[in-house]
């Protein structure tokens, strides 16, 4: 396989993984209005749990819990569920008492605490060294080498992404999604209509965190390693940037956001050779470019490249409706609407 094809499959994998991550955050933030600034922490929990469940017993100086050598789909699902359990704890403790901005502050603090805890508590997931040599799913069974594993796993990730797209589309297009968006717009008015806003937000938090966990699990299975440098708390804002650029509240926009921000602006520059004498300069320029991109989008197109879609009623025009019902009622006059 030529390096270019290998590279393109690698980028494709990251598009699929970041789509999953983005859909999860988009459900929480775009549809539910939850500013989850700890999102990368949920990604990390999914990644660590998936990795530690896929690995065998610790050896070679590594330290981590689990080590059950579970097969790929099982570890991935349990990684997602682990993120869910953590989300449940966080939500129960915070959602009833805290509103948007205060909740955001608590979550960003949580992200920092979680990072420091895992970075320093070596027996849990290896501390700063993290997990290494995570087995490549199906590689032994199918006799895959490094060259063939990458396109194979990109394909697997595409299938997972398609499944999660279908699941997410059903959620956001359902009455559940509608009520969740209502709570995003005005939680008090939504509660006054008989809706348990806490329940809707909790469910969106759990589902979004499951997506975070699964996305993180895919990344650790693909990369074969995961450590704290991969989930610095600032990484959350990369996914936020993808959601904002793609289109808040729009799952299709998120695909574009995943392609532009985490892939073109973050993963792609990693494959560009360093400028002699200036190691890391390209990555720093890319990081600044993301900031500029975000500012431009917020200034010129705050609704994102693909804005939240208007869900039309598909009701017939009034004249047609009158023909079918035989009833006529007065619509607002100009004087009344002034």
């Amino acid at each position, binding site marked *: 396989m030529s390096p270019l094809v290998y590279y393109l499959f690698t980028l494709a994998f990251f598009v699929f993984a970041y789509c999953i991550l983005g859909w999860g955050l988009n459900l929480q933030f775009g549809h539910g209005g939850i500013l989850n600034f700890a999102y990368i922490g949920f990604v990390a929990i999914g990644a660590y749990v998936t990795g530690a469940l896929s690995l065998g017993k610790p050896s070679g100086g590594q330290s981590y819990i689990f080590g059950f050598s579970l097969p790929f789909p099982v570890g991935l699902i349990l990684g997602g569920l682990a993120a869910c359990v953590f989300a449940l704890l966080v939500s129960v403790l915070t959602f009833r008492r805290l509103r948007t901005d205060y909740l955001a502050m608590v979550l960003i603090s949580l992200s920092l605490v979680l990072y420091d805890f895992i970075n320093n508590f070596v027996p849990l997931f290896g501390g700063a060294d993290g997990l290494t040599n995570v087995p490549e799913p199906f590689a032994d069974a199918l006799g895959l080498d490094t060259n063939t594993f990458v396109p194979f796993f990109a394909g697997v990730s595409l299938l997972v992404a398609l499944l999660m797209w279908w699941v997410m589309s059903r959620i956001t297009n359902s009455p559940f999604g509608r009520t969740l*968006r209502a709570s995003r717009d*005005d939680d008090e008015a939504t509660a*006054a*209509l008989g809706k348990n806003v806490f329940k809707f937000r909790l469910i969106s938090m759990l589902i979004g965190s499951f997506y975070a966990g699964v996305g993180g699990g895919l990344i650790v299975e693909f990369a074969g390693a995961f450590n704290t440098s991969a989930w610095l708390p600032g990484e959350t804002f990369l996914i936020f940037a993808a959601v904002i650029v793609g289109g808040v509240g729009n799952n299709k926009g998120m695909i574009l956001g995943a392609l532009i921000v985490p892939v073109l602006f973050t993963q792609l520059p990693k494959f560009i050779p360093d400028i002699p004498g200036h190691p890391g300069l390209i990555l720093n320029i890319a990081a600044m470019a993301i900031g500029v991109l975000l500012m431009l989008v917020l200034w010129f197109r705050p609704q994102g490249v693909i804005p939240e879609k208007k869900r039309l009623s598909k009701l017939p025009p009034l004249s047609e409706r009158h023909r079918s019902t035989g009833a006529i009622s007065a*619509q607002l006059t100009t004087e*009344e*609407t002034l």
Partner: protein
Amino acid sequence: MTAPDLGGAPTAISVDSALSCVDIHKSFGGAKAVNGATFSVPKGSITALIGPNGAGKTTVVNILSGSLSSDSGRVMMGDTDITALPSYQRARLGLIRTFQLSRELGGLTVFENLMVAAKVQPGESLMNVYLRPGLVRQAEKESRERAASILEQYGLYDLRDNWARELSGGQKRLLEISRAVMAEPSLLLLDEPMAGVNPALIDRIGGHIHELKAAGVTVLMVEHNLGVVEKICDHVIVLAEGRTLATGLMSELRENTDVVRAYLGGVLDGRVDR
């Protein structure tokens, strides 16, 4: 049922009341917003809650609807003590409210604003979304038809696919009331439904409130426009300094010297817009 003696304030709680509150107190820091309000709203009536600015009307409405908890006192809906219930549970019992400033769900269309309010929504359970799609579709179909009828009745049908945030002030008022109607209230709390609304629309909203009464809905409305109160309300509650000053017909209250002194004086002198 009889409320405790509050030293001169009206205390009688009618047996056939749709909603009553007993000795409600609420302070914000050192400021007493509500100081022993006690009144009942007769079943099937249109009742006005009036009083000077700062009398505690909106705070009382917030406490009645569960948006705000009181420091002490009881709120009863019929025979049910709802004091400890959160607002969404009160709404499920049929107590629906609107807000002083229109609270449209701006990121939803006009049609969706009504659909959200539908009482029976199996599609709000994700289990039903995946496992019983037929049930969800059927409920949505019924809600769609009901929402379409209400939009037509309230003159908003042609605006059904507009973003709610794009409506004018008057249209937002109508949307909020029609959304409340979609929620099938037995008791409707309207917080200044005519505020900022042009006279032509005031008549229309007044007509809709009468239609609701005819349909058996009890209405409690905070209102400053005494002309409207006189025209459409059966019963009036006057609040002043967080207490119930008087209750009765508007014509009776005009003769009440306490009420005249506290609130109506300006009206009688022609200083308040009627």
